[in-house]
């Protein structure tokens, strides 16, 4: 007969199967240099607390927030390391960075990448994860009004840049 530990393993596997790829993609869209590493770390951290998170929605909220925070920390860490290191001699782009782009979306995604970090994060959470302003505010640790302002400024900047290019 399966015990509580087995049930927990099965539930964890199921959660992993359903959400892993989506969380890898979230980390990638937020700019993580190794999205799989971020998503795996989020699941490893979740595993230790999973007995406290029986509700499926709470589990996904926890994983989503962890991915968001780990990506932010990782980007912050990279920024600080780059500042301490002398500038690279030839190319400022990390050697292992690989960019996959589709022709008809390239200009828009290029403009998105050039937005300030918080505006970019807001737009990814709003238009890819379809989160409400309230949910975004909770995840980013800011007020709903500030989320609204980031989203408005971000969209305005995208429209301006696209308008300039057409």
């Amino acid at each position: 007969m399966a015990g509580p530990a087995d049930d927990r393993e099965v539930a964890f596997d199921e959660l992993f199967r359903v959400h892993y790829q989506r969380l890898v993609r979230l980390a990638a869209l937020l700019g993580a240099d190794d999205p799989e590493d971020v998503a795996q770390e989020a699941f490893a951290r979740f595993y230790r607390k999973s007995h406290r998170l029986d509700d499926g929605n709470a589990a996904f909220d926890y994983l989503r927030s962890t991915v968001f925070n780990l990506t932010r920390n990782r980007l912050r860490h990279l920024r600080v390391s780059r500042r301490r290191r002398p500038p690279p001699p030839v190319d400022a782009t990390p050697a292992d960075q690989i960019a996959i782009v589709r022709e008809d979306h390239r200009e828009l995604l290029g403009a998105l990448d050039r937005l300030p970090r918080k505006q970019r994060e807001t737009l990814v959470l709003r238009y890819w994860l379809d989160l409400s302003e309230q949910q975004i505010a909770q995840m980013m640790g800011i007020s709903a009004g500030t989320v609204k302002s980031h989203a408005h400024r971000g969209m305005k900047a995208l429209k301006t840049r696209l308008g300039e290019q057409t």
Partner: protein
Amino acid sequence: MKTVEEQLRDALRSRAETFTSDPAAIVHVRRRVRRRRRRIAIGVIVPAAIAAAGIVPAATLMKGTGESGGGTVTAARPTPEAPRGNRPTLEEELKRHPPTSEIGVLTPSGRASGARLRAWFTDLEHGPGACIQQLDRSGAVSGGGCNPISRKYPTTLLWWRAQVDAEKPVSAYVGYADDRVASVTAELADGRRYPGSLLRAKGYLCQIWQVGTPMGKTVRSIVFKDERGAVVRRIRPPRSM
């Protein structure tokens, strides 16, 4: 016509689809969990055992001199450079994206430079796709993924790599091209030109191309010509590349 909001949704969905995940990822997560449990166990059991045996005073353990028992415990803590997720192997990627064509290998020849690539065609969620993997010197996968084929743009740039490998100061541009294309050339801002290479294999829906350029140099455009030398398409890589 689509609003910018709708275009942004499409663009994010499209970009997200290009990120694939390692099918063996659950194994890596379990390994992490086990590793963490071991660290906790070492952190609790080792100092307790050493203290109980009276080998070193408890104060030394807490200080952690580097050579003492305390140093051993310190070294077992996680470091900022935790192990990264592995790239999918050929077998894993083939299982996820079964080929509908032969699997070709594109190695730059003659004057051309660039990366060593492996490519095949597959069926993705919304239509056909091209899977392109970059291989390192040992033949292991070091990057790439599967991308949908656009009907609107039969010749296009898919991705770019700033440096082909740690020892080679070459950047590589990679994409697919329609059957009319007979040559691909990168034109630099300073006027220099670099020839690229094309690959076609049985079952390919179009050709796979790549062109290598000196690392750090701005590429003004990538030019595709047919057999008669007429320009089929000219792509200007985004400034971020």
